[in-house]
Structures are given as C-alpha cells and as structure tokens.
C-alpha cells in the first residue's frame, strides 16, 4: 500500500453536508413549481402556498452559497434551473384570462387608442385625401378606374355597368344561406390585412401608408362610379352601415403601424430599441382591439346590410356605430385606482 490505501471515512466535502441539509426543501419547491406550471396557483393547498416564498428564498440563497463554495457543477446547475423556474412562476404570474380581458376592454384598449390620436388623425386625413383623389380622378376620366381597382375586386361594378346592375349590388338580396359565411370571410380577411398593416409599420411605416392610400383611392373610385349613375346616396348608405366601423378599424391598424415605424425612425430621447418596445406594446394592444372591431364590422357587413334595406336605417346604424366608437375611445374617463398607483408608466 503506497499512495492509495483504503480507510473508512465520513463525507469529506462541505457541499455534501449542505446538500443533505437542504435537499428536502429543494425537492418540495420543485414539486410546488411543477404543480404551478401544470395548473395554477389555485391548485396548491394552503400549506404549500404559505411555504412557497420562504422555500424560494431558501433556494436562492442556496444557489448563492453553492456557487461560492461548491465544486459540484451539477448541483449548481440544478439550483440555477430550479430558481429560474420558481422565479417565473412567482414574478411572471398572469392574472386570469377573464381579468385580463376585462382590463383590456375597460382601460387597456381605449387608452392605447387615445395615446396614438395623432397617428390616427394623420392616417384618417391620408385616407380621406386619397379617397377624394380617387373620386375626382375617376370623375374626370373613367379610364382611371381600371388603373386603380383590380378587375376581380370590382366584379363588374365599373364605369360601363348599367344603373340597374349597380342598384342591384346595393339593394339586392344575397342568397339567404351565405350571409354568415360571407361575414366570417370578411372578418378573417380584413383582420389579416390589419395585422399585416401593423407589422409593416416596422419598415418605417411607409408600406402601411401606401396601403392606406391605396384603400382610399379605390374607395373614392368606387364612389365615383355610383355617383355617376345617380346612386350616390344609396351607395353611401350601403357603405356607411359597416364602413364607419371598418374604415375606423383600418385607420387604427395603420396608426398602430405608423406608431411603431416612427418610434424606430425617430426614437427621440429614448434609446432606439426602448422606443420601439414602448411603441410596439401599446400599438399591439390597439391592434388586438382592431380585430374585435373588424368582427363587428364583419357582422354588420355580412348580415346587417343585407337585411337592412332602407337608406335611412343604414345611415342611422352606421352613424350610431361611429358615435359609439368615438365615445368609447375618446371620452375622458376617471383613472382607475390601481392604475393611478402604478408608477411604471
């Protein structure tokens, strides 16, 4: 027996004793965290719930100790990952889906829309200007129509169409069964376009603005065709019933895109990435609301305007919807108690 002889010993290493002393606590924390990840805090019993904060702090201090004094790498890794998981269950906790939804509709959405009123006004002005331009271009020379509106979209509603045919598109009955399906299609399609307009804002907002201008142009061109045949009032009514909601939604989606684009291009005093994050999050809230708006517009378009045939009623519904949206977004409201205390913004 030279350098290596065999003798009985107790644990040699501090880390082993440390581990023996705390392993039970770690295991309990791990069990609780796993349970929280699978279901929710409510699934925990009272004992576990009370023990959770102290178990978490114990694990964190164990991690610090182990990093400083132990050479057992797997132990450090274990504690690191356990603490990370616990951290996200404790600090990353989301309130329930219903609470989030309620907060979104009561404060989050209107506030996000209010915050970008400048962009909204600008996009609306652009839409209106493009609409007027489209209108006067087609009035001066109908050939412009074909340059602006693609054939598939106009589906025969072009300057050569007869007044009867145009009248039928406004007042005609669609096949009874297809209304809801049509509304659904419009909703999903428009929402996808809105999300797209929002995302395109990142490219310095230019593609978003082009999209708005193009929408305005084709709208103006359409109006011109109907006005030409003396159907202006009817077409406007047909448009108003859902258009106030839909065009408002499109304007808001574009405004959300513009907000991101301008934040990236002109971050002001903030760092560029920070400005993008602030703008991105609030614009995303507004954009999620746009999807809800488009859902209502889809219902109005697909069902409302087919079943409501009177011009006056169409105007009434459309204008009422517009007033409703404006009131919902821009009427000043009392700051919520919880929000008034939140210093983070």
């Amino acid at each position: 027996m030279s350098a290596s002889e065999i003798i009985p010993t107790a644990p040699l290493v501090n880390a082993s004793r440390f581990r023996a002393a705390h392993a039970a606590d770690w295991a309990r924390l791990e069990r609780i965290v796993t349970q929280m990840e699978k279901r929710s805090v409510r699934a925990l019993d009272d004992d576990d719930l009370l023990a959770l904060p102290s178990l978490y702090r114990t694990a964190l201090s164990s991690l610090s100790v182990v990093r400083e004094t132990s050479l057992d790498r797997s132990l450090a890794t274990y504690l690191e990952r356990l603490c990370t998981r616990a951290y996200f269950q404790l600090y990353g906790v989301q309130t329930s889906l219903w609470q989030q939804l309620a907060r979104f509709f009561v404060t989050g959405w209107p506030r996000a829309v209010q915050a970008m009123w400048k962009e909204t006004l600008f996009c609306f002005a652009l839409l209106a200007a493009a609409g007027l331009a489209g209108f006067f271009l087609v009035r001066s020379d109908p050939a412009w129509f074909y340059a602006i509106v693609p054939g598939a979209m106009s589906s025969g509603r072009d300057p050569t169409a007869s007044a009867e045919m145009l009248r039928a598109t406004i007042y005609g009955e669609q096949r009874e069964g297809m209304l809801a399906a049509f509304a659904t299609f419009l909703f999903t399609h428009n929402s996808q376009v809105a999300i797209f307009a929002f995302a395109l804002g990142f490219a310095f907002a230019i593609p978003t603005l082009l999209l708005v201008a193009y929408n305005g142009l084709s709208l103006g061109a359409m109006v011109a065709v109907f006005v030409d045949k003396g159907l202006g009032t009817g077409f406007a009514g047909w448009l108003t019933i859902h258009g106030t909601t839909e065009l408002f939604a499109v304007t808001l989606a574009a405004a959300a895109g513009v907000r991101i684009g301008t934040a990236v291009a002109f971050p002001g005093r903030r760092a560029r990435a920070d400005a993008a994050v602030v703008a991105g999050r609030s614009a995303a809230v507004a954009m999620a609301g746009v999807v809800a708006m488009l859902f209502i517009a889809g219902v109005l378009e697909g069902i409302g305007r087919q079943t409501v045939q009177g011009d006056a009623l169409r105007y009434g519904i459309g204008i009422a919807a517009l007033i409703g949206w404006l009131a919902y977004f821009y009427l000043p409201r009392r700051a919520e108690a919880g929000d008034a205390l939140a210093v983070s913004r």
Partner: protein
Amino acid sequence: MRWPFRAKAAVAAPLSLRRSFVTPEGVDLRLELGSATARASAFLLDWLLIGTVMITATIIIFSLSRGGGIAQGQQSQLLGIVWMLGLFVLRNGWFILFEMGRRGATPGKRAMRLRVIARDGARLTGAAVIARNALREIEIFLPLSFLGTQAASGAADGFLILFALLWSGIFFLFPLFNRDRLRVGDLVAGTWVVNDARASLSVDLAAKNDGPRRTFSESALALYGIYELQTLEDVLRMGRPDAIATVAATIRAKAGLADDDDDLDFLTDYYAALCARLERGMMVGRRRDDKFSGVAAR
C-alpha cells in the same frame, strides 16, 4: 439597452449565450438564451402541429358536412364558418395564446425547452406577446404569400423570387446578426427567448456512505484543478466504461499508483478526495482553476 445592430469595434461580442438576470432578491440567475437552432426547430415543430390540427379538423368538418341530413345547406354553411374561424384562430392565436400561458411557451418551444420572457424581468404582458407574434406576419408570411400568388399567376420571374428570398433572408437570419438572438418581433416587443431546461438533483458523487475509501497522497491530489475535477464529474455521470477506463489509467499513470482493477470505485474516491482538497483551498482563498495554474489567490 443598446440598439442591437450597432457594431462596437472596441468590445468583441461575447461568445456565450449567458445573460445576467438579477432577481429582486439580488441573485443573478444567469439565464441562457435559446440557441438559433433550438428556436428554428421549435418554430418548425409548431407549424407541424398546426398543420396536423388543420388537416385533421378539415377532414372531420368535411366528412361531417357530407354526411349531413335534412338541413344540409345550413349545416355545411355553419361548418364552413367554423372552419374559417378555426383557421384564423390557429394561424394567429396558436402562438399568442400559448405564450400568454403559465409556461410562456408554445408546445414547440416547450419541447425544445424554451420560454419567452420580458427583457426587463417584469411580467410578460399580453401586449408584448401580441406584438412579437404579429411581426411574424412580415417576417415569414409576407414573402411566402407573395411568392405563392406570383407563382400561382405564373408571373414568378427571377427578379421577384430573388427579392422575396432576400427579404425573408434578412428577417429569417436577423436573430443571427445580433448578439441577443432577437427576432424583429422580439425587438419590438421587448422579449427574449431563453432556455428553460430542467435539471434533476443527481447523485452526490462525493458522498459515499458505505464502505471504506482510498486515500491519496498530497502529490497525487496536487495534479489537477477545478477544470479537471468537473471534467471528471462529467465522465463519472455519463458512466461510459471505456471513458472511465481511459481516465482512470491516465490518472494512475500520472500519480504513479498501482492498478487495483476497480476503475469506477477508484475514480469516485479520487473525485471525492480531489473535491475535498480543492474545496478546502477555496475556503481559505486559494482557488485553483486548472492543472496549469499554480495556487492563485482569488
């Protein structure tokens, strides 16, 4: 936070994906960013799942609508609506709803052990999740749908294909060009994708309750430092007989010890003894990082 594109000539980008992340209690969790490979795999996996759900649902809906009875028109219309809404929710909601959940991860991300977190350590809000996923619209769907429509109308000439590829190349590879592996969506939403791997508490190699141990001479233990100790830990935990035999032979040769025909036991004992020695050194401020370093004061 700096704009991640800015090249800083003076500071070389750190190769590690570890980022410091200090909890309110003041402990640095040292999170590890998800690698580009893991994130790409998670994304593909998610799309595979979405595709599977889509196809299954479509088959079910079509077989239902074909087998309809009297009110077939009404019913097939209803099914059509369900199908369209389902598609919309799948495409836009899959990522958003899953990432808003307690795990902060889609099934694909969960499988690849990733999770989305807010860069500032605060709660991951719904707004951030929506923003990061809506941006995917221009990262992936724009060039794809653009190419799709062009190809469908037979007008996909070389220039357009090149343009679409360039566009998607810029956005696809964006995470590789900044050190925090951010997508454009992450950038705008202020999020990070980090590794969320688990580890279980493995056996304590230094603790052996039963049986006697070998003791080693001071010179035999002075051969190695912390780096070698942890390499030895890996070898022991992996438990591959050939690796164990090789390592045991090397140590015996260096320390001048006789072969006692029990490599695993020998290595375990050596590990425990070396660990104890290095740990004692650390306690009194002598930390030895590897076999090349002498005894350096910390």
